[in-house]
């Protein structure tokens, strides 16, 4: 594998299609700079600022970009807000489309065939495997990502966090809670 990638890199460099230095920058960005902390800041802002939450609901791409997180593939973002009635779950049945700009690169299970096939057929069963048992009367809505449209779940704000700063709130927002395979941490668990 390594030799084939080197071969591609050599050909592409010779043809002037890539710049090896730019490749290193991209790797560094995704290994160290982009990750779920970005999404947690978006969620914490939405919890703290109702006007921002409205903006996120109506134009997630712009609201997220306003915090400095923009996609590189020209994709649009949509925020799916969890409520007392509805829990949201994100999957990409096609391949592994994922909101990189706010969550970084997806975890292994998100890219693997069992999750991609089962999240749609049996979302409650999948959630239980993640340790999340929802009340029977709560609806589960599954969002199937595409190359053009990616989803960010906005988990419900935990009780007992009144008056918390955005930084402290962001500490309660896990990656899985923004995919929908989890919920935000309770204040005592953080």
């Amino acid at each position: 594998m390594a030799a084939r990638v080197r071969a591609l890199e050599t050909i592409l460099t010779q043809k002037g299609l890539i710049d090896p230095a730019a490749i290193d920058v991209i790797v560094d960005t995704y290994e160290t700079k982009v990750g779920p902390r970005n999404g947690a800041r978006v969620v914490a802002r939405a919890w703290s600022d109702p006007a921002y939450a409205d903006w996120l609901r109506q134009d997630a791409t712009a609201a997220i970009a306003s915090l400095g997180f923009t996609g590189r593939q020209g994709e649009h973002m949509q925020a799916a807000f969890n409520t007392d009635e509805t829990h949201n779950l994100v999957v990409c049945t096609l391949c592994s489309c994922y909101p990189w700009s706010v969550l970084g690169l997806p975890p292994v299970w998100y890219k693997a065939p069992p999750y991609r096939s089962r999240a749609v057929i049996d979302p409650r069963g999948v959630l239980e495997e993640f340790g999340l048992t929802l009340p029977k009367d709560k609806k589960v809505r599954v969002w199937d990502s595409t190359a053009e449209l990616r989803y960010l779940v906005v988990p419900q704000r935990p009780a007992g966090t009144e008056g918390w700063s955005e930084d402290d709130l962001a500490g309660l927002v896990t990656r899985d809670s923004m995919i929908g395979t989890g919920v935000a941490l309770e204040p005592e668990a953080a």
Partner: protein
Amino acid sequence: MNQRELPPGIDEPVFAEPWQAEAFALTVALHEKGLFSWGEWAEALSAEVKRQDASDDGHDYYEHWLAALEKLLVSKGVAPTAEVDALAAAWERAAHATPHGKPILLENDPQR
């Protein structure tokens, strides 16, 4: 009901091996260069990850990624398979001919 087991939800490193990071970054860079649209890429990747022999634990994800990239580059006329095969073999020979701890250079291929 499909009861295929989900892989563990541990926080694994973003890339398991350096070549995966490079294959990923090449794709992002080529898209930004305009060689293909992201929709084209998603379609190519989808064809690979949906293969019947794709592993349930997802460990072969970047192998599929690389296969998708190679096929897309063939269809764009950028990197014919024979050329990639020959250069990959040259890189392998160079790696074997390079003393441990020294950077591997294509010039180290004894057949060059």
